[in-house]
């Protein structure tokens, strides 16, 4: 609940900030298609990957890695939040 409120506030502030900035043009469609076709090429034989890697584990591991990489920031947010709570024992 606390995080939901916090995220809503932060995102509201971001939206407010970017509302003043004019919308920037998007990437040209041809370039986007080229990159997409390159990715398609890369992943065209991805069917072989599950044979060598347990994808069920990999699929879980990827979000965990992302969280661990950003653990410092998550920790900081948690600490900041917890210190703001009235149940502090200091």
């Amino acid at each position, binding site marked *: 609940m606390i995080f939901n409120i916090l995220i809503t506030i932060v995102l509201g502030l971001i939206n407010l900030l970017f509302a003043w900035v004019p919308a920037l043009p998007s990437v040209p469609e041809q370039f986007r298609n080229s990159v997409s076709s390159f990715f398609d090429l890369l992943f065209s034989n991805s069917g072989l990957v599950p044979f060598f890697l347990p994808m069920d584990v990999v699929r879980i591991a990827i979000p965990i890695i992302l969280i661990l990489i950003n653990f410092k920031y998550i920790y900081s947010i948690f600490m900041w939040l917890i210190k703001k709570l009235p149940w502090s*024992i200091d």
Partner: protein
Amino acid sequence: MININIKNKRFSLLKLLLILIACFFFFKIYDVYALVNDDLEFMRDTSYLKAKYNNNYLRNNCLDGVHDCYELNIDIKDFFTGKGDNQKRYFLEYQENGWSSTGNYSTTYIFLFSQPFKLEEVVSYSDDLTYKYVSYHFGAFYDYGDNEYFNGASFILLRYFPEENVNYGSHGYFDAYWHGNLGKTNYYSIPWATYKLNTSTNEYEVYRGQENVILSKNFNLRNITTDYLDTDKVLPSDEIEIPESSMSLPKPDPTSGMNDFEKIVYHLKHFPNYIIDSIKSLLVPNTSMLKDTLSSEYEYLQERLGFLFYPIELITDFFNRILNIPNNAPIINIPNISLFGNTFINSYSYNLNDLLLDNNISLIYNYYMLFMRFIIVLSLALYGKKQFKATIGGGN
């Protein structure tokens, strides 16, 4: 700050609380997975399915006097209590283009591809840490001739358990599992399960796969095509109509049927869970709300920032592609190699699964996969420890 001295090491209560929250957050990682990958393939893969082979049905004539109907009386044991007091009675009836069934629950459908068939019951249990559910699977299976493989065509959820409260089917569940037209008279389903039957023990193992691909590498692997499916009648998943009746089934009170003393014991027993749930609801983000908010924010920033946002789009696309790598058969396509008009190698396709037909290679492969799982988990644990130490370790 209140500190606790344990063997000359000081631990602050704040740090302990933080560790507790980290544990909660760790368990919510599964929800994070759901954020980035809407389908619940993970839940399918980790489901535990095993049941006794059972031919407990009676053959009767349908009312129309043309088709056969089958009546089943099945004693289903409650997964948690082990009590076999849930007598279910199903009546399978031939309808146009398939079979359907009626039973004690409104969410019971069976589709049959062809005869002869066998009726199977599979009790499955899955725990994705958000939903604990028990489901009962009745399938009409197509015999491929070697008495070894059957293709399951239907899946029926009778009850599932969010936490420990008995509940019934939900929209999300059927949205994830059913690929068919649930709003019409006839029901169609894409087969998603493949079974290996051990005829000596009358037991079978179930391996799931949405794209009719056998996920297990333990036995003779082959692709099962859906040629026999009338694909014109299979609706894409975004057109699935979920009947209101299956979404708004009543939520029974878990303490119903208990006397006052049992209710007190029940609540006392679950008191720690109530506190944990309260803390979780306070500190752990609501994933569905988070998902909606972040996806709308993503679209907003994409629109406002234009080309500046493109690198983030690329990274997202890359990870999505990794997460959505299909469990297709690992087929290597060798092209036709010719030089000066002479063909050295003719083009052919080789399915790596064929290697696993050899029991020895299959065994080695299983050990390899186990080793890979171990390595990934160990790497994660070590990296997590390093990050944890770098961020929190040292001092108090």
